[in-house]
């Protein structure tokens, strides 16, 4: 009876179900294999925890690092045990190239491009055929956009002061100089004979020579931030280049009352009772005009346009970058401001605003490049036996339309070349070339000297170089940073006609 019941069947059907479930499990395993072997592989094989990377560091010569003219910035030497160590061209590039040490790990480009330099990088397809080659390592040489001579002169211009200089080609995003001071000699960290003592001394130095200020330093921007406010104001349509504020001349004397807080200015009595527009307000660096523009633009749009310039996230760069911010972002007002007082102060760079020198160089470069932000690049090619991988220009986005960018260019030209403007930006003009720029004097509160800032570009009509100069606690922007910028831009344009 039981044996013939309809519910009791031979086992074939249920065994088939079991087979299907198990086959699916194998399918999942194959997919997982693909995930790790192909999709995640490029990241995993670059990891410093990968024993192949560790092993290669000891036995395989690293690729060289060259500047844009082919000058060797980093090469290999052999120690007494026959193991390789790195030798660098000089202290000027240490903050950019970094070091690759057996004992102290990696920094800078040596860290960011470790896999390419040791020769383990490569996508799944090119990597797949490597096993048919003689060696599984194919060290790549890095070709940088950096101009070693310019880089060295930028470091010299800063001298013994703490600061940073970023110079880049606004049309391609190629970084020509990325100087941070104080710097150090990376060769002392990689040379086995001196490494231990040198590294300990660098770590103890209170001036933090190991900190690449150009990319990881965050500073109060002061008036150079006004260019960001101008971009947001014009871009959002809140203001036009001819916008004036009737209350502005009077506010110069008594201060601008924002919610019971007075925004003070009064450093340009020459403009008298004339209401200023974009160009004249930028020429004299009018805090009141920019505070009113920021208030009219609104916190949300100010933060949004700053975000389009790169604020609020690490920059898409070859080296790690600190995040620049317009505001601390904890407030309830639009954009994360606490209230209109903070917004008004932020509009001329004195709120809870902190920026990296690289970010401010990108602000200048975006204005110079007709409103289009190019991805900043240091590495332009990776050369190995497998071939050369060129890394070309990459447009991140059009931040504002070209005509609005050109209006800001006019304002920045006035700030450098105008009758009144040149008093605030002494020495930033490149002789014989129309120069655009903006100085900044970032008050830090208390009794300390302000940070001295300058951002700009030249020639204004067809820009070839954009620059940001920051000198920590050095005084007024027009007095310290501006002449350095003028001198370096002039030198670059003369050498690259």
């Amino acid at each position, binding site marked *: 009876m039981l*044996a013939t019941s309809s519910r009791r069947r031979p086992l074939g059907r249920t065994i088939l179900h079991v087979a299907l479930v198990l086959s699916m499990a194998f399918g999942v395993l194959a997919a997982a294999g693909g995930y790790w072997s192909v999709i995640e592989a490029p990241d995993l094989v670059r990891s410093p925890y990968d024993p192949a990377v560790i092993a290669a560091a000891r036995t395989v010569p690293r690729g060289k690092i060259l500047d844009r003219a082919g000058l060797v910035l980093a090469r290999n030497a052999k120690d007494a045990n026959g193991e390789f160590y790195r030798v660098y061209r000089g202290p000027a590039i240490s903050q950019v190239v970094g070091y690759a040490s057996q004992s102290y790990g990696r920094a800078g480009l040596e860290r960011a491009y470790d896999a390419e330099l040791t020769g383990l990088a490569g996508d799944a397809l090119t990597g797949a055929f490597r096993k048919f080659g003689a060696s599984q390592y194919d060290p790549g040489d890095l070709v940088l956009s950096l101009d070693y001579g310019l880089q060295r002169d930028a470091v010299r211009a800063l001298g013994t002061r703490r600061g940073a200089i970023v110079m880049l080609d606004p049309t391609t995003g190629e970084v020509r100089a990325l100087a941070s001071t104080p710097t150090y000699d990376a060769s002392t960290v990689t040379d086995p004979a001196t490494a231990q003592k040198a590294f300990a001394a660098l770590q103890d130095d209170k001036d933090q020579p190991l900190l690449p200020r150009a990319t990881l330093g965050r500073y109060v921007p002061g008036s150079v931030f006004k260019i960001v406010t101008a971009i947001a104001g014009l871009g959002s349509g809140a203001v036009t280049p001819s916008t004036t504020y009737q209350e502005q001349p009077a506010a110069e004397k008594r201060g601008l009352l924002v919610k019971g807080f007075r925004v003070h200015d009064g450093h340009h009595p020459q403009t008298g009772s004339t209401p200023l527009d974009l160009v004249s307000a930028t020429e004299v660096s009018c805090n009141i005009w920019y505070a009113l523009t920021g208030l009219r633009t609104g916190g949300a749009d100010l933060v949004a346009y700053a975000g389009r310039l790169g604020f609020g996230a690490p920059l898409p760069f070859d080296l790690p970058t600190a995040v620049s911010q317009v505001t601390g972002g904890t407030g309830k007002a639009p954009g994360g401001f606490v209230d209109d007082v903070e917004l008004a102060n932020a509009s001329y760079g004195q709120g809870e605003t902190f920026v990296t020198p690289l970010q401010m160089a990108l602000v200048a470069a975006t204005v110079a490049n007709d409103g289009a932000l190019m991805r900043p690049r240091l590495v332009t090619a990776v050369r190995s036996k497998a071939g050369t991988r060129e890394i070309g220009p990459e447009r991140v986005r059009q931040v504002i339309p070209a005509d609005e960018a050109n209006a800001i260019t006019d304002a920045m030209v006035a700030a450098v070349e105008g009758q009144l403007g040149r008093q605030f930006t002494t020495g930033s003009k490149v002789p014989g070339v129309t120069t655009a720029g903006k100085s900044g004097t970032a008050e830090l509160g208390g009794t300390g000297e302000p940070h001295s800032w300058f951002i700009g570009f030249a020639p204004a009509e067809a820009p070839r170089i954009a620059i940001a100069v920051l000198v920590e606690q050095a005084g007024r922007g027009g007095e310290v940073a501006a002449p350095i910028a003028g001198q370096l831009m002039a030198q670059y344009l003369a050498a690259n006609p």
Partner: protein
Amino acid sequence: MSATPRTASAPSLPRILGPIRPRPRWTETRLLAIVALALVVGSLSLGLTLAHRFVPYDPGGLAIYLAALGGAHVAMVLAGRRSDQILLPAVGLLGGISLLLMQRLPQDLVTLDVGGSTIGLGDIQLAWLCLAIAVATTLGIVVRSDTWLRRYKYTWAAVGIALLLLTFVLGVDVGGQRLTLRIGPVSGQPSELLKVILVVFLAGYLSENRPLLIEQDTRLGPLRLPPLPYLAPMVAMWAIALGIVVVQRDLGAALLFFAVFLALLYAATGRLSLVLIGLVLFVLGSALMASLFDHVRARIDIWIDPFADPLGTGYQIVQSLHAFARGGLLGVGLGAGLPMVGGRLPIPEIHTDFPLAALGEELGLVGVIAILGLYLVVVERGLRIGASAADDFRSILATGLALVIGVQAVIIAAGDLKVLPLTGVTLPFISYGGSSLLANAVVVGLLLALSDKGVEPPPPPTTSGWRSRLRPSRLRRRSP
């Protein structure tokens, strides 16, 4: 139906050795030739990479292994049984891959002193492989009757539980797990043998009680379940699995046993409700274990984010994933992977827990998928043997034997690939270790024997198991 006894050409009396009538096995011959070719090419590749010469890496070892495979084939031909011709080549290729891998790893990973001379990893594995081939072939040729498995299922269960208890009490802790049983000079991992015994017992139990498990219902809310007393084995099984986790700290074996048990329960009854209850029990048990035992919770934490501590607790699994990543699509080539830093292998347990990672690096994703495919072939042959077997006992037995190999491969491969938490079971036929190879050889031998349709037919199906004898009234009540 399976109930009809077939006479065919089987001898009327059960005997151990049948008359010898050689029968060619051309499919097996051709497949073995391909396997041999593949292994020679692999060995040449290994020689080229490691010794920089175009000769096989360890020609002697490979020759012995191929001779053992050939010998097995000849023995099967001579024995004249009509058994499966795919299993031996598939398993032979897996074993050959194992041999190449063990030859290529540092030989001092495992050493053994034999009569004054020391032999290393590759030679020890070769010896176990040859022994395993001998065991599988012998079982495949000699076993013609399943009575000795069928009739004494409770004896087998007792043996299994005795083995388990013995390990609980006398086991030696190795690496925080109590898996190894050492009696005098002989040591081994009983859980490997236990999985075979478990399948034999389950096949006996489930085939005998299948009618009851299918026909009778107890309603529990919306669920229709078999009579509750028949669920006792499930609870017992669950308890045993938990016991293994608690006492032996062997998550892998517990997972394997429970998964095979659930699959067989489903195969025998077709009742999804049982599987669901089993899964609920599994989840409850896992949660309980994770809340009670640090080592279980640690495993789960490592699984969720091994990169949180890449040099400490997450080291092995992170290194395993790195190995797969270095391999990429086609691999770095046999012998070219596993970069040594300071003379140490990146993964210490590469030969037992992570051979798939080593093969994933050297043979690439393509190689991993090929190896997974080989396991699927073995499983498919086993399940096919199960589906076409003459009666329920043989069906469930063959299915269970195929599953212990398939599920075990899934568990360890999933651990290596971070699909499941890592549990230390061996990769069948590839991992180093005698217990594992011999137990899996027994599985293959039994499958070979079961695949021969010409052997003694199973006894007629019985409705007179002791359980049904005890409860005739219940059965009768349901019959119209």
